[in-house]
């Protein structure tokens, strides 16, 4: 049994614990250890992905307990892909956030931020790989707690946003625990696969339905699915600038994946109330898609606009799940990948602009394409992908979701996709108008030209990675779909 699944979690975890102490020795040491550990995890996760593609699902059992009793890490193709995504974006975010360090007399003040970033990555990877329901709760709380801290690091408004998020997030976590409790009292197991076996064997009861309600509500809050999205815009907008791409781009996706596992892997199509639940998720997603897009149109602050657009985009993912057909679900996952890169790409872009010119207002973006061609190039590609222009990633995820919707005779969903693309176009082309056509604003350049022509190398790296990822996910979506499809077919049928 290979130790890779656990090493991927363990490396950043130990680095996170050491980070604070090491940064007392030398101001850069803690940071470098964290970055190195995440890089190592990234390499391991790629190896793991290859392993999963070649040999199927990997299972890692802790402490030599037998499977239904002990904690298990269970990595199928979907989780392997998502783990790679988390680690890529996590890695580039760590590099990116180097530019946002606050130095105080030769000492980096935010080694705490690196600790939290590493913990956030640990939590998300753990949530994705675990096969145990209570273990998922623990990782969910690790993710949330580090998320609260990172959001609180974003200044005065960030603290309040973090506090509010914490209140809502804790309710969600409690609901999740309640749901798990109900399920446990019904079946006596916590292992996901075993739970699926137990649930599919017996008659589905109302208590199980209640548990699923609690669980969907919990993950709905965590991923900011409409109507549970109240906390999200200000939290995303005011999070710590260096970690914002990771928070906005990835943090919402993992609960969505967890929700997928509950609906399809644990309850499965044998569940009596499945259609009703899918319909409810579908309605939530449709409302969220429309609501998020409309609210995003009204924002003047770039970060708020992007945050509201996330509400809509999360809706796409859950809409893919709600179609209930394998193609639609794969579309949801493809959108998860594509949107992670698009949204973090847009936040990398805005971060770079803020770093250089210190402004996030849409009015100040005039002629930014002349001053920062690389950044604006990324933002244009990411925004076009959001609108769903082929051959970028966002188009193909929409294609598969649309196919799932049409295949399961939910033409309303297809219609919502169309409407939402157009609404996205409204606010993203508004952004383009600001970027390319507004008057030039004379803003002080805060990055001296001897450091970098546009932005430092670590920002350039982040931008280039996202840029390539968006295009590659679009053009070469079929290999990704082929990796995901067998796993989805297994659970979706």
């Amino acid at each position, binding site marked *: 049994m290979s130790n890779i699944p656990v090493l991927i979690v363990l490396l950043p975890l130990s680095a996170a614990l050491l980070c604070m102490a090491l940064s007392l020795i030398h101001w850069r040491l803690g940071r470098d250890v964290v970055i190195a550990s995440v890089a190592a995890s990234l390499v391991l996760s790629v190896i793991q992905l290859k392993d999963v593609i070649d040999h199927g699902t990997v299972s890692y059992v802790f402490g030599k307990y037998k499977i239904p009793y002990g904690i298990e890490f269970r990595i199928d193709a979907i989780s392997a892909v998502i783990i790679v995504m988390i680690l890529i974006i996590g890695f580039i975010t760590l590099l990116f956030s180097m530019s946002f360090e606050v130095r105080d007399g030769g000492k980096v003040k935010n080694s705490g931020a690196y600790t939290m970033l590493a913990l956030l990555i640990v939590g998300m990877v753990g949530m994705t790989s675990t096969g145990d329901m209570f273990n998922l709760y623990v990782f969910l709380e690790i993710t949330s707690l580090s998320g609260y801290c990172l959001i609180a690091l974003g200044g005065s408004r960030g603290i309040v946003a973090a506090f509010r998020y914490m209140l809502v997030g804790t309710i969600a976590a409690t609901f999740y625990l309640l749901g798990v409790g109900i399920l446990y009292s019904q079946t006596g197991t916590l292992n996901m696969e075993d739970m699926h076996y137990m649930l599919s064997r017996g008659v589905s009861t109302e208590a199980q339905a209640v548990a699923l309600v609690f669980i969907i509500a919990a993950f709905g809050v965590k991923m900011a699915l409409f109507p549970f999205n109240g906390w999200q815009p200000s939290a995303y907008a005011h999070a710590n600038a260096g970690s914002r791409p990771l928070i906005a781009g990835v943090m919402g996706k993992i609960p969505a994946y967890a929700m997928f596992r509950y609906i399809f892997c644990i309850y499965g199509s044998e569940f009596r109330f499945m259609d009703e639940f899918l319909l409810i998720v579908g309605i939530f997603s449709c409302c969220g898609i429309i609501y998020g897009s409309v609210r995003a149109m009204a924002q003047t602050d770039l970060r708020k606009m992007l945050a509201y657009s996330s509400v809509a985009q999360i809706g796409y993912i859950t809409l893919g799940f709600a179609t209930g057909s394998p193609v639609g679900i794969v579309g949801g996952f493809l959108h998860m990948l594509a949107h992670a890169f698009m949204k973090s790409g847009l936040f990398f872009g805005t971060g770079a602009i803020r770093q250089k010119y210190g402004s996030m207002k849409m009015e100040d973006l005039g002629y930014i394409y002349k001053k920062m061609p690389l950044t604006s190039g990324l933002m244009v590609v990411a925004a*076009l992908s959001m*609108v769903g222009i*082929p051959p970028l990633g966002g188009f193909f995820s929409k294609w598969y979701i649309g196919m799932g*919707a049409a*295949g399961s005779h939910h033409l309303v969903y*297809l219609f919502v996709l*169309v409407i939402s693309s157009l609404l996205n176009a409204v606010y993203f*082309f508004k952004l383009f108008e600001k970027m390319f056509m507004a008057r030039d604003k004379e803003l002080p350049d805060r990055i001296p030209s001897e450091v970098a022509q546009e932005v430092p190398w670590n920002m350039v790296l982040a931008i280039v990675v996202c840029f390539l990822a968006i295009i590659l996910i679009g053009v070469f979506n*079929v290999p990704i*779909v082929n990796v995901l499809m067998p796993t989805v077919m297994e659970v979706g049928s």
Partner: protein
Amino acid sequence: MMNWFLENPGLRPVMAVFVTMAASGLIFVMGDHVRQNVREAITFIAAIFNCAIVISLVPHVLAGENMRVSLFQIAEGVDLSFSPDAAGMVFACVSSTLWILTSLYSVGYMRGHHEKHQTGYYAAFAMCISAVMGLCFASNLLTFFIFFEILTVATYPLVVHYRDEEGRRSGRKYLAYTLISGQLFFAGIVILYVLTGTLEFKAGGFVSPDLLPGPAMLTLFFLMVGAGMVKAGVMPFHSWLPAAMVAPTPVSALLHAVAVVKAGAFATIRVVFFVFGPDAARACGGAEILSYFAVATIWISSFIALRKDNLKARLAFSTIGQLSYIVLGVSMLSPFGAVGGLYHIVAHAFMKITLFMCAGAVYVTTGKKNISEMVGIGRRMPVTMTCFTIASVAVAGFPLFVGFVSKGNLVMGAVSVQSPLYAATYIASGVLALAYLLPVVFTAFKRDVINMEFQERGEASLPMLVPIVVTTAVVFILGVAPDAGLHLYSMAVSAGHQIFGTIGVGI
């Protein structure tokens, strides 16, 4: 390597698309860091190379070879694949040859007018051509749609070229129309793919007439044809086209003659003949409704054109009417109509680009935009205005000019489906075309009023004049010998054969 390339004509479309796309990228990245001449040289090299590739494909297409090549799967079960066929080749030949001429003209116009943002202009222009090449050669609907949307987005920077409030407004309008219709097209493609499991174009259509019950089929038909209708400026979806007139003249020439509206007409052809096919289009009643849209557009746009004083606006409404010729030709579902519609892509391209380039030449040389200010301008720019006259007469459909060839076929199509309405529309529209274009000519060549401004002879600069003369010559040559040069007429006819089968074509 070279041999391998020569022996595989199927790879040439791929080259045509990617060379142009690469040129666009190169211009965009390098444009501001190299000298103007180098930048324009890239455009010309790409344009000539592209044109050579397209022309080299002509014999293969005429021989009826199957040159389908698929690169890789672009979506589960659908390939990114190209296969040049007769219908696509007609459009590809037109746009690739006109790209060279328009580039030459652009150099003259942009420099003569000291335009800003030239790098972005040339890059977006090349991108448009690349997209057009892609959609000409696309062998399935998804590939087609990808390039269709790239074209939509790549045209946007051209429309908002001046970056002022007016440009921004027309840019928004353009996007609103094209993106909405594009997204509905997308929905249509998705539904069609789910229903039929294939997206591969097939002459004569792959949709069986009883795929869906009537109203649903009609909805699907219009979801898909809608995108073409909007781009082709069929009323009531036309208003983006006159609004886009704020852009520089070469852009208008591109929009009207070379690429964008033609892409709309071509999309209609592909959807009606290669997706639904004549049978299904007739069965669901969609073609008939489409033809009424086209008829209304031809009439209304001609009358609006009569009232426009701005020359470019008048030409824009003329384009709207002329494009509906194609749509009407397609929607009458007769072999003659199809051939005439396809050939009208060629005819209208050369005629309208001549008119637009003349209008632009007048504007750059004298700064005049309105017809009422052009009294006696023929004295100053005799060559330009002569070309304008020839093109005007050709638009009206006089014999010996290319407009006659396409229009003759269209009228024959109308007769063959025994529809007096269609025939009357074509004939009346010819008369109306004379009525709105000849006054320009008369104003220009007025002898009794002598306008002091236009006493001295002063033609536009050579890069602008040469394309005008060349396209006028083409208008004449193709009118006398429709099959001359690139065998465009034979290709249109063979496309008609493929679509309707050999029986009953009679040409």
